[in-house]
């Protein structure tokens, strides 16, 4: 954790410098604040009495924040930048930061702190470390609630940049809806007639309709058990990104129970989205009960979200102790109720991976594709797979271990 903050500009006691510095900090934390807004902010501050912190807060927020999802970041940044200074007339800022390590920082705070820190003070972006594979279902040692505030600004920036570069698959499902299309196959009598009226009822050009293509809905089932905990955050980011870009994405988390977090992921800001996810999930990084979770998905949600030719991404390592016929049965049902079932397994990155675990053996016959997913490269591979023409349904293409 960062405990000292050097501001981008040393405090001078001048309101203008402070506001400019504050605007820069906001920009670094991801809120677009242009020079025009800074001038507006200064004018607004001159119009009010700067005796009250709350008034200053409300004024600057009104000028700088244009979207609901930025409010949280603004609040954090404001608190850090203008700490509880007694004398608001000076807007001084020289008290060291309180030690945040003792209490759990709220989401986004790490991002804001890094934005406020000097560039030289910033840590290098932590590399995604390949940790040892845990083959046992973890016990209570693991934190029950993961804190997404620990995600560094650099990491977020890297992931979002990479994800922004990913060309998300579009237009892969023919819908039954038509739109004007010169190359279309269907005659549009209505428009043809209307255009014929210009020539006194003589039909000269034929208007046509073609089918509209739309991306297929995606349903992601994400395993958040202990053995998957290193990947969970990364996946959620990925899912958040595709939720943003595609309209029809449903996301479910399962450990010992199944939770639908589709709505939580709709918030625009990743920090906010992930925080709201983690608060809605009870069994963060406990054990796994894949069969039970799949059963409740099939029973409660399958018919509700698998219509319209959905693609299912099952993200799990398949390490289930109690694998029996029930697991195979539920996998089969899931497979038969969606258009395409893609199993993403981070264990596949080990070259020596073999489907030895009972659960994996049970599940493999029922998937259309089996892919590794543990870093940005494999996510890009997944995007490609989603963009490619779907393979013939129900012919499993199991990749042999390399």
């Amino acid at each position: 954790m960062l405990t000292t903050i050097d501001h981008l500009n040393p405090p001078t006691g001048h309101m203008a410098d402070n506001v400019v510095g504050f605007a820069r900090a906001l920009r670094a934390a991801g809120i677009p604040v242009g020079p025009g807004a800074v001038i507006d902010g200064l004018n607004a501050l001159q119009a009010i009495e700067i005796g009250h912190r709350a008034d200053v807060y409300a004024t600057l927020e009104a000028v700088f924040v244009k979207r609901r999802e930025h409010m949280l970041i603004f609040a954090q940044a404001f608190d850090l930048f203008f700490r509880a200074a007694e004398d608001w007339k000076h807007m001084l800022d020289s008290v060291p930061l309180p030690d945040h390590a003792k209490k759990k920082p709220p989401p986004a705070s790490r991002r804001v702190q890094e934005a406020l820190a000097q560039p030289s003070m910033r840590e290098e972006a932590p590399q995604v470390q390949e940790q040892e594979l845990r083959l046992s279902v973890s016990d209570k040692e693991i934190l029950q609630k993961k804190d997404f505030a620990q995600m560094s600004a650099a990491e977020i920036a890297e992931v979002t940049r990479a994800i922004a570069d990913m060309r998300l698959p579009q237009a892969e499902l023919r819908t039954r809806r038509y739109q004007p299309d010169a190359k279309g196959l269907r005659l549009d009598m209505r428009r043809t007639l209307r255009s014929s009226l210009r020539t006194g009822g003589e039909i000269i050009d034929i208007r046509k309709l073609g089918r509209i293509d739309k991306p297929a809905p995606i349903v992601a089932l994400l395993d958040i058990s202990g053995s998957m905990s290193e990947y969970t955050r990364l996946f959620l980011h990925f899912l958040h990104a595709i939720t943003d870009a595609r309209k029809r994405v449903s996301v479910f988390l399962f450990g010992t129970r199944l939770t639908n977090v589709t709505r939580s992921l709709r918030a625009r800001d990743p920090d906010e989205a992930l925080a709201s996810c983690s608060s809605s999930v009870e069994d963060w990084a406990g054990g796994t009960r894949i069969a039970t979770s799949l059963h409740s998905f099939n029973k409660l949600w399958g018919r509700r979200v698998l219509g319209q030719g959905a693609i299912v991404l099952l993200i799990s390592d398949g390490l289930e102790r109690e694998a029996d016929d029930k697991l195979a049965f539920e996998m089969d049902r899931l497979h038969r109720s969606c258009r395409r079932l893609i199993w993403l397994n981070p264990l596949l990155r080990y070259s020596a991976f073999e489907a030895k675990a009972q659960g994996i053996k049970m599940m493999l016959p029922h998937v259309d594709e089996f892919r590794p997913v543990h870093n940005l490269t494999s996510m890009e591979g997944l995007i490609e797979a989603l963009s490619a023409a779907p393979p013939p349904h129900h012919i499993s293409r199991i990749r042999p271990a390399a």
Partner: protein
Amino acid sequence: MTASALPTSVDGMLELLTSRGYLAERSLATVTYLSLRMGRPLFLEGEAGVGKTEIAKVLSAALGRKLIRLQCYEGLDVASAVYEWSSAAQMIAIRLAEAAGDTDRDQLSSDIFAERFLIKRPLLQALEPDVAGAPVLLIDELDRADEAFEAYLLEILSDFQVTIPEFGTIKAPQPPIVIITSNRTREIHDALKRRCLYHWVDYPDAERELAIVKSRVPGISAKLSQQVVRFVQALRDQDFYKSPGVAETIDWATALTELDARSLTPQVVGDTLGALLKYQDDIARMQGDTLQKVLKEATSD
């Protein structure tokens, strides 16, 4: 069909539905009554076969209103849901105008986009005035239509008017009674639900179901109807992929009376299980011991 006034209380609504053989829960009668009073669409969601569509039919019959039904499906568009121009008739009109030597273009276009060339589909029909009072508009299985149609529907349900570019705006003098049903094969958008009164139609309890069977299956013996209802209620407690709805119960009771069954035996149940359970996995689970156990519970006095 006799037109009757709108009920003035929840009890009145209950009576109205009961008089037509629809034995509704009080909560459903309440929400139906409110939707009539407030002029808000009624949004009914629930498992298949619990009587969602039925209530619209019963309402229209009891109130003496016309029932207009729009069955939704994927790709449902304006042409099949709202209106369409009859191109063939228009082309004939153009040719006739030519033959008569009319060359006034503006006159021609106003002539061929007249109301007589308009083919009215259910949603437009529902906006038309009716001597018996505003019709009952049943939008069935909205979840099968796509989001684009839902957005369009939102517009119609808020103003009860349709704008046809070549023709003008048609507004309902009196908004229809709208009932929307959904089987939840897809979640309906919040914006649409917000405009409606929402009700989840659940399976009835044993007592109500028994009353329903008795009123819907005339000639069924008291003993058999009781066993049938007990058996079905026990099935719903099992963890089936698709539990039988009320419609299935009525079907099954009818099937049993057709076969002259006096009471449930393993043989008869095994032969007619297809009227109740519609998934092979579920039927397979209902063999042997499970069947015996449920049957024993249902037939014990």
